[in-house]
């Protein structure tokens, strides 16, 4: 798929109509292409970030792996949903230092929903995950990875397997 497609309308096939190639393209090929190649986004963080204690902090992903719909804003560290729909999100964050607690969540247009919170993460592998399914309005709602600690810590980027990361895939129309 060379050009990212918008979610297609449900194709309507009129009776008594002689379709030409363009009709098959619009009514079959393009909708099937979108159903096969969903809107996706993947990013990780490879430079450690200081997570200051207290409030929910935005995870600053610095490496975008996949963003065919160009939704990522590297300044605000948020991915703008290009079209209205239901989005499936996974977030992981690992902390190199040892806070007494770690929350990892998903931010939807400024509201954080925490996925998990190990009360005391492991000193050697202090990580937590979040998963969610969110209805987003295209061009309006944005998605972020979120972490919160109870004493200032740094994210763990010591190995590929520990990079904080976020993945998003379109899951449906959401209406």
């Amino acid at each position, binding site marked *: 798929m060379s050009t990212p497609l918008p979610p297609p309308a449900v194709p309507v096939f009129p009776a008594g109509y002689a379709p030409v190639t363009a009709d098959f393209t619009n009514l079959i090929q393009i909708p099937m292409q979108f159903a096969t190649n969903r809107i996706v986004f993947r990013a990780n963080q490879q430079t450690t970030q200081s997570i200051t204690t207290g409030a929910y902090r935005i995870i600053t992903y610095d490496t975008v792996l996949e963003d065919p719909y160009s939704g990522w804003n590297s300044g605000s560290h948020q991915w703008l949903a290009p079209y209205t729909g239901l989005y499936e999100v996974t977030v992981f964050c690992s902390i190199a230092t040892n806070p007494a607690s770690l929350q990892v969540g998903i931010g939807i247009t400024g509201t954080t929903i925490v996925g998990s919170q190990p009360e005391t993460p*492991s000193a*050697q592998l202090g990580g937590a995950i979040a998963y969610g399914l969110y209805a987003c309005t295209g061009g309006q709602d944005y998605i972020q990875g979120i972490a919160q600690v109870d004493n200032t810590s740094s994210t763990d980027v010591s190995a590929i397997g520990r990079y904080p990361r976020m993945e998003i895939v379109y899951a449906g129309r959401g209406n």
Partner: protein
Amino acid sequence: MSNLPTVPVAPDYVNEQLILAPGLRSSVGDGIAFLLSPPAFVGAQTNTLQGVAPSTLTAIQWDTESYDNYGGHRIATSSNTYYGMIPGWYLCTCSSFINSTTNGDASSGIGGVQSGGANQQYMGQRIPMGAAPPVPGTTSAKLMLMTQTGTFGGGSNDYIQGIAWNGGGISQSLLNGSNQFPYMTATWVAAQSGTSSLPVPVNAAWPVPPSYITTSFINTNVSNAIQFLTYPPIYEAFYNTTGQRLASVTSVPSLGPTMLLNSETVDNYNAGINGSWTAPVSGLYYAYGQIAVSNHATSVSLGAGLNVNSSNYGGTPLTLWGSGQQATQITSAINCAVVSRHLRLNAGDTLSLSAWQNDSGANGVNVLGVLTNNWSSRLIIVWRSA
């Protein structure tokens, strides 16, 4: 909900077949409508402050519906249950938070009835819990098959529930905070059955006259495409016996051990053997893993990971780690760590469940998985996009 599309059935086209508009509407039109808006449920508990009795697997009441396009849930009746309206495999997740005032442990999971069977609970992440803040938040995932569907509240209708566990010795409430609250999702991801081992659709350009539409072309780009998208690769394996041990390791390795998962819930592309799975086709896959163990008094930490061998992840086998948590330092206490992410894989790439644990006495732990134990080790993989 009778006007909503159902699982599409792709026709097999034959030579000289007259293709009529009604046929295209039902196969392609309704197929696209279903595939781009499959049954899904997103629920939360934001104001009930439900009490959870100690050591009791408790179905969570969902007082808030964020999404329910096929009407499988009603707040007023059976608020803790999502009834299947369309048959198929559902990817289900649940997170919960115990507003803890005692020491103990906490967990969340997925329960329900599949294919008319018994009500069972499949628990996920299980972590230590303290008397003082912060509260423990746990998460879990499970593939559930619903085949007896379509009758909300029907006695024989399959259903899904989110489950909370409070191992604190006294009844405690679920936290309904602004940012921390119980949350459940259920998403249709595949039909109950279908044609497997199909390639990812290429959705080729339609022929331009004088070229013409051949049987092969339309079957490949309509029939097979719908069949693949309706029944993509899905996989769930779990550990269903005893004897597997997880050794204590001081430092978290870049490549952890591969865990044996000797039973399969589903493997429609025959891609897995004992928990080692090979991607049958390229794509973006959702993967979830959990490792459940029985602790010692000297247990320190537990982590879960995914072993991946893919050029998209360094080209050499490594572990993508997930949650890392402290262990409950009580003999025979159960802990369960989890990992989940979406992975970009090529056909032939491999995935398996991995784990790490550290014990101050260098003791190994037993990996849990006997089916009668609500906490068992498992791996889930679902194709989500090309």
